[in-house]
């Protein structure tokens, strides 16, 4: 049976924890709003970009001399997995869900006899995958110094990926990130970015009748690398919103659990306090009777 003093310290420490988790939850809520705004601001660009790309890809991508970024290298032997996670923990299952999906995919590819290479974005994913897939790592992007995600960050990652692609280091690239649905739901998603697949229903109607300046092929070759950056950027933004959402609900849970724990401990504390008082009374009374 813990002493009264022990219980008191315990209650105080849980109270402190609750304060911290509560504060983290509120910070995450504020950051989530900003991350969501950023994701929404980027949506018009991504949407239009994809529509135009779908049109271009449909009309020019089918030819034999189409750029490798859209046609592929003709093989799928070497697979690059780009695993995007957060730089900080304490966000529930966010990082481990993404890592789990990437790990499954990696093992599946390995079992099929493919070579797997992994590029990690964000420290937590690297830590999670290091133990069993550490030998597949080919690089790491550190975003911990970045306060506000910009398109520039996505461009840097895209440039790195494209340089590796041009050097023939891999055939297929897939990004792993968590798609933001709402505060409690984030879906770990895998999306293939190289070779790019642009799909759109009304493709035929869009592409028809456009004049291209310079030629269709030149525009396509110019836009495809940008497409990679755009996709990475939107994945980064989704991930940012998901991370804050996950952290918010994780911290909400933690705050509630701490509250429950405090209630329990307080009950226990009061009980033992009463027991002590009763004991003292019994001692006094029996002492008085003995006289």
């Amino acid at each position, binding site marked *: 049976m813990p002493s009264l003093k022990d219980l008191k310290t315990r209650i105080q420490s849980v109270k402190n924890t609750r304060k911290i988790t509560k504060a983290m939850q509120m910070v995450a809520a504020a950051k989530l709003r900003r991350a969501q705004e950023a994701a929404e*601001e980027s949506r*018009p*660009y991504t949407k239009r*970009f994809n529509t135009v790309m779908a049109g271009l890809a449909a009309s020019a991508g089918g030819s034999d001399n189409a750029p490798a970024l859209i046609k592929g290298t003709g093989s799928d032997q070497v697979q690059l997995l780009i695993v995007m996670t957060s730089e900080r923990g304490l966000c529930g299952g966010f990082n481990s869900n993404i890592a789990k999906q990437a790990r499954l995919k990696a093992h599946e590819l390995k079992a099929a006899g493919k070579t797997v290479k992994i590029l990690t974005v964000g420290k937590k994913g690297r830590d999670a995958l290091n133990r069993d897939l550490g030998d597949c790592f080919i690089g790491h992007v550190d975003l911990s110094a970045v306060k506000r995600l910009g*398109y520039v960050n996505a461009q840097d990652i895209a440039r790195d990926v494209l340089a590796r692609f041009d050097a023939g280091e891999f055939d297929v690239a897939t990004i792993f990130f968590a798609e933001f649905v709402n505060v409690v739901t984030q879906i770990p998603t895998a999306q293939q970015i190289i070779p790019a697949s642009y799909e759109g229903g009304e493709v035929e109607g869009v592409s028809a009748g456009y*004049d291209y300046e*310079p030629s269709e092929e030149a525009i396509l070759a*110019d836009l495809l690398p940008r497409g990679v950056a755009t996709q990475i950027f939107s994945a980064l933004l989704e991930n940012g919103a998901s991370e804050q959402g996950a952290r918010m609900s994780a911290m909400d849970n933690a705050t509630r659990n701490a509250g429950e724990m405090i209630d329990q401990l307080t009950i226990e504390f009061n009980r033992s306090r009463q027991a002590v008082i009763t004991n003292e009374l019994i001692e006094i009374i029996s002492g008085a009777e003995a006289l």
Partner: protein
Amino acid sequence: MADTMQFDLVSPERSLASLQATAVQIPGAEGDMTAMPMHAPTITTLRPGVLRVESPAGTSEYLVTGGFAEINGEALSVLAERALPMDEVTRAHLDELIEEAREMYKTAQEDDQPHGLVADAAKLLADMEALGTHMSL
């Protein structure tokens, strides 16, 4: 004939403008062009330059770096990689862009990239510098 068209300027980070315009001057990769309502459907890539938008409410200018523009009869969307309203642009901004272009040119040269890339980087640098003179900053 409609005398205005829907004009949208979006960058990956935010949407900068969405308004009715009468004419838009675009710094196309193969030369400037002005798009007016009922322009033939066109898709063109952009070079770094100044985008001038004329609307019934007045004229506004934007500095854009690469990207592309999609024109059809009723609407014009410019998807710029980076875009800034002209009155927010300072010499420092431009220097930063030029510095970036120069850096890219240098790494392209050093890394012994395929010839096209070096030429592209050089062109980008030249475009950026020309932009500075053009803006007389």
